[in-house]
C-alpha cells in the first residue's frame, strides 16, 4: 500500500486556486427539505465505533467505505458476535472521515483511511472484534457500577444480566462510556453471526430509493455545477470563457484544467458545460506523443526487446534463468489495454466552504487524501475539514482520487454557497485515471520431464508509482506493476521478473485488482501454453507444480465443481486459471463455446475460493459473481484508446458491459479455512480473462494473447 500513500498526480492545487470567477450572477437559493433529521434523543457513543441509542439500537461507524462489497455488514457481524445483539438491532454508517496519525478509522493494516486492495476485512477482522469485545466488557462493568453488585455478564438481545436482573445496553450505556482500566477482552469465538449469511444492512435503503449516494446529497441553499475539461489530456484553460447563454446558468469558474458551469440544476450545468467546450481557448500540451495509443504501442515494443539495463526494475531474481539447454522452450508476448473505471455513479461531490470550515459530502475511498488536500485548497487546518462519506455507486479504485472533490471545494470556496458538482458520463470516461496498459513477454523452459527450469518475465507497463513519485526516477521499484508475477507459488526453477516503466502522460490509476489485472492474464495464459507444450492436463500441470495445500485445494475444489474430469457439453471446452493474491486463493474454470456467428460464448464459470475465515458467505459469493461480470466485460470488450492525447471512449455505448442476457451461470465453492481472512473484492477479476482464453484455445486451437478479445467496434461475443 506504499503506492497509495503517494499524492495523486494532477493539476497543482495552487494553479486551481488561481482561477477567477467571471461574470457572476449571484445564485438564488434553491430550497430543499433538509436531509432526514438526526435522532433528537441522546445516543451514547462508546469508543470510536459503537453507539447505543435509547431504543437499544447499536450503530457501528465504519472507516472503510461501503461501495458495494458489503463491508458495512461484514464488520457489523463481527460486532454483533461480541455483543450478542439481535441482528435487527444493528445499524451501520460511515464514520466521519479522518486523516493522519491518531485517526481511529484508518485501516489498521496500513494506518490510512483508504479502502482498496481488498484489505478491509483483512485489516479490521481482529481490531473490530477487539473493539466490540471491549465495549461488551465496559457495558458489563457499567451494570456492576450502576447497581453496586457483582456477577454481571452478557445477556442476549442487547442486554447484560446477573441472573435475576436484566438491563438493556441503553440502560447502562452512559455509565459504560466512561469505564476504563479493564483488562484486555477475551474474544467470543461463537458463530451466531460470523460465517453466517446475514442480510446486508444497506439493502433495504438500496431498494426503496432512500440510500444517499454522492449525487443524491441535498444541502440547503446549494447550487449545481458540472465541468468540462480540456478534450486533450493535460490541456489548460487559456482564458475564462463567457457564461453560456442558457436559462438557469449562474456563472462559470476557471478551475485551471477545466471550466465549471454553475447552474440552478445539474442538467443545465451539464448542458452548459458541453455548450462551451468548443468556445474555451484551451492551451494544449506541447507534446502528445506520450498520450497516443499508436506511439505508446511502438515505444512499448521497443522497450520489450531493448530497454537499457538502467531502466529495468528486477523485482525478483533467483538463479540464472536461461532457455539454453531446455528440452522445450516457450516465448510469447501478451498485450493488455488501458482501461477505464466506469463507476456506475459518475464522479461527483458536494462541498460547503466558509471562511473557517470546509464541509464535504463525497463518495470516496480516499478520506486520507481528501482532508489534507481540501484543507490546503481552503487555507484551513485539517481539523476544519468535515468529511462525510456517502454510499458509492461503485468505486473500483477510481474514487480513491481527490480530483473531483477538490473541484467542488474550489467552486464552493469561490461562490460562498454549497455546491454539488457532477461530471457528465462523457467527462467521467475522458478524465479517468486509467488502468495501465501492459505488454508482457514470457520466456520459459521445460526439461525432459516437463519440469519448469526457467522463467524470464518482462512487463512493459506505465508505472503508477513513477507518475506519482519524484520525476527524476526512471526506474521506480513499482511493486504494484509486478503484483501477480512476483512471488508466483509455482515451482519454476530459476526466474527473473522485470518491469520496465512505459513513459506516458496518460493519468494512471488503481483499477480493481491493479497489477494482477494484467500480470495474471500473462502468467495464467503462459502456464496453460506450457501445459500444452508438455502435453499435460492444464489443471494437473498447475497442481503438480504447487506445494501450498491451499493452492492445491482450490484447484481440486474447482476440478470437482466443474466436473473437469468429465467431457464438457458438445461444442464447449473448459479452461482453468489460478491466482494466489489479496490474501486469498482462487481457481476458476470457464466453459466456453461459440455463438451463432462463431464468437466467444461463455456459458458457465466455476470458481473455488479460499479466503480464510469467511465472515459472510453470501457476500463472498456476491464478490465472486461481481468480479466475474467485471472481468469478463473487460476481457471481451474494454479498452481505452487515445489519439494525440484525446481519450476516445465517451460513454457506455462504446464501453459495453454484460447484461442480464449475457451473464454466464456462475457456480461457486467456498473452501473451508481457518486461516486469517483474505480479500475477495478483487480476487475473481484477474482470472476470468485467462480462464476464457485457455478454454477458447482448447476449443479452437487459437490462442488469444491480446485483450480485449473483441476490440474496436466489433463488440462481438457472448
Amino acid at each position, binding site marked *: 500500500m506504499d503506492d497509495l500513500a503517494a499524492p495523486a498526480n494532477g493539476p497543482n492545487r495552487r494553479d486551481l486556486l488561481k482561477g477567477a470567477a467571471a461574470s457572476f450572477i449571484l445564485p438564488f437559493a434553491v430550497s430543499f427539505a433538509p436531509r432526514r433529521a438526526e435522532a433528537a434523543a441522546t445516543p451514547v457513543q462508546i469508543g470510536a465505533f459503537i453507539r447505543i441509542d435509547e431504543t437499544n439500537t447499536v450503530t457501528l461507524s465504519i472507516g472503510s467505505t461501503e461501495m458495494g462489497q458489503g463491508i458495512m455488514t461484514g464488520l457489523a457481524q463481527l460486532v454483533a458476535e461480541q455483543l450478542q445483539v439481535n441482528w435487527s438491532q444493528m445499524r451501520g454508517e460511515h464514520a466521519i472521515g479522518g486523516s493522519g496519525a491518531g485517526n481511529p478509522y484508518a485501516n489498521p493494516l496500513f494506518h490510512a483511511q483508504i479502502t482498496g486492495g481488498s484489505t478491509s476485512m483483512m485489516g479490521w477482522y481482529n481490531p473490530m472484534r477487539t473493539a466490540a469485545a471491549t465495549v461488551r466488557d465496559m457495558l458489563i462493568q457499567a451494570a456492576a457500577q450502576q447497581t453496586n453488585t457483582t456477577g454481571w455478564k452478557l445477556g442476549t438481545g442487547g442486554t447484560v444480566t446477573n441472573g435475576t436482573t436484566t438491563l438493556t445496553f441503553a440502560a447502562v450505556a452512559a455509565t459504560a462510556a466512561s469505564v476504563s482500566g479493564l483488562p484486555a477482552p477475551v474474544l467470543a469465538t461463537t458463530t451466531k453471526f460470523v460465517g453466517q449469511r446475514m442480510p446486508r444492512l444497506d439493502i433495504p435503503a438500496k431498494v426503496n430509493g432512500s440510500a444517499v449516494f454522492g449525487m443524491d446529497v*441535498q444541502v440547503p441553499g446549494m447550487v449545481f455545477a458540472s465541468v468540462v475539461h480540456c478534450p486533450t489530456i493535460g490541456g489548460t484553460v487559456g482564458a475564462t470563457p463567457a457564461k453560456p447563454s442558457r436559462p438557469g446558468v449562474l456563472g462559470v469558474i476557471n478551475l485551471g484544467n477545466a471550466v465549471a458551469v454553475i447552474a440552478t440544476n445539474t442538467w443545465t450545468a451539464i448542458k452548459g458545460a458541453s455548450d462551451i467546450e468548443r468556445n474555451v481557448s484551451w492551451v494544449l500540451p506541447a507534446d502528445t506523443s506520450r498520450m497516443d495509443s499508436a506511439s505508446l504501442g511502438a515505444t512499448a515494443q521497443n522497450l520489450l526487446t531493448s530497454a537499457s539495463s538502467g531502466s529495468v526494475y528486477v523485482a525478483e531474481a533467483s538463479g540464472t534463468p536461461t532457455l539454453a539447454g531446455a528440452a522445450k522452450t516457450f516465448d510469447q508476448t501478451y498485450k493488455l489495454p488501458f482501461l477505464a473505471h466506469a463507476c456506475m455513479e459518475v464522479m461527483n461531490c458536494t462541498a460547503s466552504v466558509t471562511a473557517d470550515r470546509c464541509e464535504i459530502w463525497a463518495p470516496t475511498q480516499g478520506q486520507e487524501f481528501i482532508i489534507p488536500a481540501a484543507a490546503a485548497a481552503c487555507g484551513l487546518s485539517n481539523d476544519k475539514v468535515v468529511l462525510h462519506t456517502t454510499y458509492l455507486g461503485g468505486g473500483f479504485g477510481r474514487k480513491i482520487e481527490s480530483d473531483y472533490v477538490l473541484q467542488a471545494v474550489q467552486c464552493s470556496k469561490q461562490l460562498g454557497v454549497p455546491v454539488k458538482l457532477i461530471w457528465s458520463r462523457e467527462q467521467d470516461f475522458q478524465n479517468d485515471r486509467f488502468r495501465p496498459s501492459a505488454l508482457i513477454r514470457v520466456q520459459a523452459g521445460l526439461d525432459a520431464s516437463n519440469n519448469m527450469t526457467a522463467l524470464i518475465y518482462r512487463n512493459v507497463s506505465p508505472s503508477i508509482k513513477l507518475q506519482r513519485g519524484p520525476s527524476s526516477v526512471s526506474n521506480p521499484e513499482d511493486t504494484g506493476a509486478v503484483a501477480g508475477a512476483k512471488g508466483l507459488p509455482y515451482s519454476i526453477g530459476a526466474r527473473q521478473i522485470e518491469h520496465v516503466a512505459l513513459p506516458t502522460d496518460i493519468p494512471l490509476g488503481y483499477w480493481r485488482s491493479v497489477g494482477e489485472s494484467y500480470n495474471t492474464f500473462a502468467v495464467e495464459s503462459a502456464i496453460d501454453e506450457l501445459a500444452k507444450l508438455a502435453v499435460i492436463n492444464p489443471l494437473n500441470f498447475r497442481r503438480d507444480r504447487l506445494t501450498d495445500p491451499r493452492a492445491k485445494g482450490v484447484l481440486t475444489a474447482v476440478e470437482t465443481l466443474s466436473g473437469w474430469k468429465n467431457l464438457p457439453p458438445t461444442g464447449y471446452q473448459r479452461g482453468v486459471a489460478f491466482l494466489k493474491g489479496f490474501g486469498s486463493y482462487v481457481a476458476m474454470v470457464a466453459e466456453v463455446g461459440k455463438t451463432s456467428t462463431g464468437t466467444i460464448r461463455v456459458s458457465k464459470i466455476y470458481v473455488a475460493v479460499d479466503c480464510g475465515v469467511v465472515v459472510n458467505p453470501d457476500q463472498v459469493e456476491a464478490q465472486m459473481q461481481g468480479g466475474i461480470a467485471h472481468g469478463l466485460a473487460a476481457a471481451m470488450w474494454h479498452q481505452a484508446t487515445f489519439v494525440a492525447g484525446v481519450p476516445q471512449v465517451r460513454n457506455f455505448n462504446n464501453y459495453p458491459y454484460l447484461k*442480464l442476457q449475457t451473464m454466464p451461470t456462475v457456480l461457486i465453492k467456498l473452501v473451508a479455512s481457518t486461516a486469517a481472512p483474505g480479500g475477495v473484492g478483487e480476487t475473481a477479476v484477474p482470472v476470468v480473462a485467462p480462464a476464457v482464453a485457455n478454454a477458447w484455445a482448447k476449443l479452437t486451437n487459437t490462442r488469444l494473447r491480446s485483450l480485449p478479445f473483441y476490440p474496436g467496434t466489433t463488440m462481438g461475443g457472448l
Partner: protein
Amino acid sequence: MPTYTLNVNGVNRTVSVPEASMPLLWVLRDFMGFTGAKYGCGIEVCGACTVIMDNQREHACKVDVSSAVGKKILTVEGLSGDVDGAKAQAAWVTNQVPQCGFCQPGMLTATTAAMKAGHHGSEIAPEIKHICVCGTYPRINKALGGL
C-alpha cells in the same frame, strides 16, 4: 420559467424549470427531491434513470418534463405503495441483490413495469437490458424467477 404540474408517486406537485426540454430525470432529482432515479449515461443505454409513466417504463433521462404532464409517474420511492413494486422490492431483499445499489432503482422500476404488462418470472429478464457494473445479474435473475 415554464411551470408544470407533475403527479409523482400519487401526489401532484407544481414545479418551475428553466427549460421545457429539461428531462424528467433532473426535474425529479433537482427540483422535487426524488433522488431515487439515477443518472448513469444520459443516452438511454444504462437504464439507471428508469421510471414508470402510466404503467410503461421510460428512460427519465430522455423524457421531456413537458411530456410527463398528466401522466402518473412512479419512481423507486413509490414502489412500496404499489402492489407489483412491493413484490419486486421484497424479492430483491430476499435474494440480497444489490451491491453498490446504484443501478437497482432502474432495475426495480423496469421489473415493476414488466409485471404491470402481465409478464412474470423468467419472461421479464429478456426485457431488461440495463447495465449493472457490479454484476448483480445472477441475483436479479433469481429474484425475477419468483415474480
